[in-house]
């Protein structure tokens, strides 16, 4: 009988890992559709960002109360993985609590800590549910999240609570069985939290108790494996991608826009035509700015998958706050939606461009792009180093340089700069008139 369970476990694990790997490779392929940028310089600073932003959750602490709750959930996630490791080994080897005899007293301390964390995770998730659904915090009731994104957030929180309760139920039943000296159930000593609840099971027979313990064990691990495969279709993917995203954070000062060497070259040739005569001839026409996801950088696309839709960017955005169409969170969500769409095209037709659609207009409107004041509030706020502004600016470049699409007032500003060296229509000769 035991071998059947072991085979079942192996199958479940194999399927889960295979599905996850397939999806992860698909996401990787999608991200690499972006144009290349070199983000490997200054490794020391990058590791520091990884430690501070991803492991240390530095930006989260701009709002300390939420940061602490989030930290419980995060620490729970990281640390309970040791428990998952034991479950994996037990499942494959047909053992029970294989670490208990090896670790001795330390085992009790570890499980005790896990149990406390499990309680904290469940409580934090419950508070998060209340914030979203009962207190209705502004950034969570925003229309940005209408439909799937709002359900997604709730499913994640509910799943985490259920997984933690299953873990605690399993331990409580285990404690009751240990107390009865049931065969196979190793005596570990009293678990810190669940030993308090073991008496609740006193009315159950040994076999019923074993059914509860085994049931909770299986549901817990199957739930974890299912959740693993839910991740890459959900905003919850941030628990993985926050790490590379923090490492590849743009290290330039926030005010510095990305240079365009192709245009720099053109301007140099215009100013020094003798250089142009000797320039190598290129037969590729450079694209200016971004119209679709492939024109963005791979970091922009990684950003899109790393976004957890928390809305701190939009809550700080002057345009969003004053009721404009722009919401930096939506810029990221729409970029991901379009990238997924392109990914599906590739899977189905082997080519990305079969749908005659693009990120610009089919997803992100000109009105949104026009409303940005480039104030960097969204960039400053993002806990995982996402840069919505970079996407907006690249798309503005496409509008102006590829489509000559700009509001009339901007066209006037451009021609004033060109003709009068100032954005207003004043004569350059009056530039020092302020002295009088």
């Amino acid at each position: 009988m035991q071998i059947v369970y072991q085979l079942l476990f192996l199958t479940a694990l194999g399927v889960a890992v295979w599905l996850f790997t397939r999806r992860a490779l698909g996401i990787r392929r999608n991200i690499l559709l972006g144009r290349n940028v070199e983000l490997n310089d200054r490794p020391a600073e990058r590791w520091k960002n990884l430690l501070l932003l991803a492991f240390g959750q530095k930006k989260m602490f701009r709002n300390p109360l939420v940061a602490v709750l989030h930290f419980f959930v995060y620490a729970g996630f990281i640390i309970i993985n040791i428990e998952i490791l034991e479950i994996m080994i037990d499942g494959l080897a047909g053992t029970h609590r294989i670490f208990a005899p090896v670790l001795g007293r330390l085992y009790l301390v570890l499980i005790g800590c896990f149990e406390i964390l499990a309680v904290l995770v469940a409580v934090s998730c419950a508070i998060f549910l209340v914030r979203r659904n009962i207190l209705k915090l502004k950034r969570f009731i925003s229309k940005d999240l209408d439909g799937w994104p709002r359900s997604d957030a709730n499913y994640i929180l509910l799943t985490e609570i259920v997984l933690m309760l299953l873990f605690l139920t399993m331990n409580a039943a285990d404690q009751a069985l240990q107390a009865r000296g049931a065969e196979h159930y190793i005596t570990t000593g009293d678990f810190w939290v669940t030993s308090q609840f073991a008496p609740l099971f006193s009315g159950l027979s040994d076999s019923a108790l074993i059914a509860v313990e085994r049931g909770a064990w299986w549901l817990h691990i199957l739930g974890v494996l299912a959740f693993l495969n839910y991740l890459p279709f959900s905003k919850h993917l941030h628990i993985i991608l926050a790490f590379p995203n923090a490492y590849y954070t743009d290290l330039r000062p926030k005010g510095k826009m990305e240079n365009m060497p192709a245009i720099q070259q053109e301007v140099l040739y215009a100013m020094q035509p003798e250089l142009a005569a000797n320039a190598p001839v290129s037969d590729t026409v450079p694209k200016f700015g971004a119209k679709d996801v492939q024109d963005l950088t791979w970091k922009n696309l990684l950003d899109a998958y790393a976004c957890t839709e928390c809305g701190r960017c939009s809550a700080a955005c002057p345009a969003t706050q004053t009721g404009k169409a722009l919401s930096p969170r939506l810029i990221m969500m729409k970029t991901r939606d379009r990238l997924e769409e392109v990914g599906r095209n590739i899977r189905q037709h082997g080519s990305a461009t079969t749908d005659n659609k693009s990120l610009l207009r089919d997803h992100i409107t000109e009105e949104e792009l026009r409303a940005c004041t480039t104030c960097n509030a969204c960039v400053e706020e993002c806990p995982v180093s996402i840069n919505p502004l970079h996407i907006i600016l690249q798309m503005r470049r496409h509008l102006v340089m590829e489509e000559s699409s700009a509001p009339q007032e901007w066209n006037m500003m451009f021609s004033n700069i060109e003709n009068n060296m100032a954005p207003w229509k004043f004569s350059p000769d009056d530039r020092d008139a302020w002295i009088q």
Partner: protein
Amino acid sequence: MQIKTMAEYFANGETPEVLFWVGCAGSFDQRAQKITRAFAAILDKAGIPFAILGKEEGCTGDPARRAGNEFLFQMMAYSNIQLLNNYGVKSIVTACPHCFNTFRNEYPQLGGTYEVVHHATYLQQLIDGGRIKMKEGGTFKGKKITYHDSCYLGRANGIYEAPRQVLETLDAELVEMKRCKSKGLCCGAGGAQMFKEEEKGNTRVNFARGHEAVATDASVIAANCPFCMTMLTDGVKEAGKEEEVKVLDIAEMIEQNMQ
């Protein structure tokens, strides 16, 4: 006040201590011209040999670049860099955070590397170095002042303390708005918004900021950017407080109160 151009210095074979980059707003906007004159007067009183470019100065290209017109930006950048390099300019001070940001972060890649400081930092250095001395009990003594962080000095370049330290020399009571420093709210003019109507929404950014500034009960809103100046002045007007609340640049406040 005698203001010499770079060309005049050059013709005499002299080098000024610093180039005062006035910027388009500082040159042409009537309100910003007052800031320009105040800052020039400070430099003059402090005895700092400085030059302006005068008629030779041109837009840095910041609004063009942020609107998406990279071509125009590069054209402006190259002609400015050529001019500055020909004069052998090493050190620049400007009262415009947008010009400051462009010089500091964007020109070096195109061959224009200068030591550039924004006037907030420059004023702080002059005060610290004893080159500016403040009057005892000046105009702002005991008054409530609130400071508006411009995005391009603050978040874009991480300078939050220098302007606050300058304001502290005024012996005033500095009160912070709800959103300040790295959480500061934009005035609504950056990213070339200054040069077009806002998109439709339920209010204007500068109205929102104006209300927030007025809510601090301060009698002066201190700014460090000519565009913030315009936006905040309109915002205060919209809040119906233009009589009680003045929007002033930190240079104007220092100029009024230096010995």
